[in-house]
């Protein structure tokens, strides 16, 4: 038994870990006497990747490429390969993953199971939109091949399916062409949330990537960042660019208390806002620091101290978006909580294809909170009330504590989803939110 944590480091529970290393031997990895769960890099924040006291199939050994068609950009690979590995090999050849979340250090299987989205959701959708086929191993020994045109019901159950429909063994992905690794970026500061929404709406048609950092201790000022792929090739390195290959840091110890407290957060937020406000408006940068700013600080989650942290990420409709986000920020201010990282992003009019996928038209707010136990959970209940009232939902890849009732309101297709679950698979999240 090994003690494992997810990214939020809230618990530290024992798991029986088995490695998945040979996709042709998957039947031998499953056991009939124990219920298990696939686990990639464990970068989800809550309990979607955990099965305390149970069996965990570690998939990072299934990390091989299978085939790449350099003409069409169709890549087939094992599901345990990291997004970073794909981009590192493919970008120099003129291809890139169309959708990636805020970190590249996750497996393809994990990206599909959470149907992750990125800063370019409004024109590129979510990860599952670019999966052409996947093979799903069921614990009864059967193998299901599915895709958007083939056994589509299995496909849309598995995309965003939290690993509960089976273990994804191999995937076929459609990459998108890129000239090089550079992005033309722009940074604009805004004073209130109405300005944010105006910026977001205006940026949609001509900018591929958009995201905003909000000063959660203010009444809604923030920094809006947007970017487009540059036409410059790798060799044509722009003068102003800094390479993404700088040495990273590693927080290899856990500070005894959280480094995130009201003093540091307030000081940081003021500083960040003022720096960004004055910073260069336009810059050409390597995609890594823009898309994955925290990947260079390994184990940054330890900054939150030994009790770990929560991330609250919700999605609410655009209607009265500014007022509702304002209300949420107000609750956070009242509670005296807050974090460095408060992200705001609009999603466009695109429905996600997975039954339990998170993105849909609206606006998403993501905030990290130091785990202060009761205090934090109480604040979340107040935030939940706002989300519930407007028919919003919470992102399962980040969630560690929402109620079953809120889950069912936010994900109306769960009843349909349940008929695709694999009875040999269960997670702490499925026990909490789906009753098994």
């Amino acid at each position, binding site marked *: 038994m090994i003690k494992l944590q997810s990214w939020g480091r809230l618990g530290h529970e024992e798991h029986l870990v088995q*490695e998945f*290393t*040979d*996709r*042709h031997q998957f039947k031998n990895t499953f056991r009939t006497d124990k219920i298990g769960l696939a686990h990639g890099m464990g970068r989800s924040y809550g309990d979607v990747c955990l099965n305390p006291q149970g069996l965990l199939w570690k998939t990072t*050994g299934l990390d*091989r*490429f*299978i*085939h*790449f068609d*350099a003409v069409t950009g169709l*890549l087939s*690979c094992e599901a345990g390969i990291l997004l970073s590995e794909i981009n590192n*090999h493919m970008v120099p050849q003129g291809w890139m993953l169309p959708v990636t979340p805020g970190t590249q250090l996750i497996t393809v299987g994990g990206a599909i199971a959470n149907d992750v989205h990125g800063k370019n959701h409004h024109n590129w959708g979510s990860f599952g939109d670019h999966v052409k086929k996947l093979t799903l191993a069921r614990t009864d020994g059967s193998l299901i091949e599915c895709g958007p045109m083939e056994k589509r019901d299995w496909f849309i159950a598995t995309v965003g399916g939290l690993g509960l429909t089976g273990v994804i063994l191999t995937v076929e992905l459609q990459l998108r062409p890129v000239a090089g690794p550079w992005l033309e970026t722009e940074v604009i500061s805004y004073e209130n949330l109405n300005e944010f929404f105006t910026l977001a709406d205006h940026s949609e048609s001509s900018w591929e990537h958009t995201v905003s950092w909000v000063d959660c201790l203010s009444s809604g000022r923030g920094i809006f960042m947007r970017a487009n792929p540059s036409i410059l090739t790798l060799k044509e390195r722009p003068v102003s660019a800094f390479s993404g290959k700088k040495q990273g840091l590693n927080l290899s110890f856990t500070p005894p208390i959280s480094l995130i407290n009201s003093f540091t957060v307030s000081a940081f937020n003021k500083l960040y806002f003022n720096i960004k406000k004055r910073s260069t408006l336009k810059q050409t940068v390597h995609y890594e620091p823009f898309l994955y700013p925290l990947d260079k600080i390994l184990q940054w989650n330890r900054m939150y101290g030994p009790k770990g942290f929560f991330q609250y990420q919700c999605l609410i409709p655009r209607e009265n978006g500014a007022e509702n986000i304002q209300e949420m920020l107000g609750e956070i201010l009242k509670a005296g909580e807050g974090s460095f990282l408060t992200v705001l992003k609009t999603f466009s009019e695109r429905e996600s294809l997975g039954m339990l996928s998170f993105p849909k038209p609206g606006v998403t707010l993501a905030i990290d909170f130091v785990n202060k136990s009761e205090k934090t959970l109480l604040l979340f209940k107040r935030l939940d009330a706002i989300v519930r009232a407007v028919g919003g939902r919470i992102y399962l890849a980040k969630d560690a504590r929402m109620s079953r009732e809120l889950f069912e309101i936010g994900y109306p297709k769960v009843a349909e989803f349940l008929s695709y679950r694999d009875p040999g698979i269960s997670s702490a999240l499925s026990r909490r939110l789906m009753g098994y």
Partner: protein
Amino acid sequence: MVNPKKRIVIIGATSLIAEHCARLWVNEAPVDLILVGRNKAKMEVVAADLQVRSSTSSIKCYQIDFTAPEKIDELGNELVKEGSFDLVLIAHGALLEQALCQKNLELCQQSLLVNGISPVLFAEMFVKHMEKANKGTLALISSVAGDRGRKSNYVYGASKSLVSQYTQGLQHRLAHTNLHVILIKPGPTDTPMTASLKQQGVRMAKVEQVAKQIVNGINAKKKIIYAPAKWRLIMLIIRHLPSSIFNKMDI
């Protein structure tokens, strides 16, 4: 003028350590890679991955019986027809459980054959060809387990001891030639071979780290590579512990 591709042979191509070394090599430059293993299907999975990483590398798979001298000779004669070898890595092995080897004499023999005798047969065969060409590097993967016999794995350890001594002899024989012979001793590494050790809580090095140290050591033409390097000091101490102390240890 385009540099000719390096010709690299890996014996035991489904070893995870070998596979990660191959990843590093194909990443450096396109190569002429020959994979030799006991399981064709598994090798082809490895070959397909390497081919995606390096589309202009040429990758071929050969499946043979690893303990049959005549088959090993045949393989060498076949391979040398297409040119000399720049680098040969002998990497195969199987960690058969010590307790089972003690109970079952056939398993015991199997462990000694696969881990000790087979690598030597391959090395002797390749040296014949490489000596004629008077160039190339031959690297054998042994193990820290071969540095001192210990109760938890001395059958495996003994076979690796055989490989280590053999390699030293080869280094002596070829000291005044253009050939380089390298002995590689990994510590416990996180691979499918050591899965049962991992379950028992033995701390393992990451295979990427071990492969990097091996590739760097080969480039630097070292004689003995401990990977990770700390094992050089650890085994030095372990080798010199008097039996009065060693016998009290549960390792």
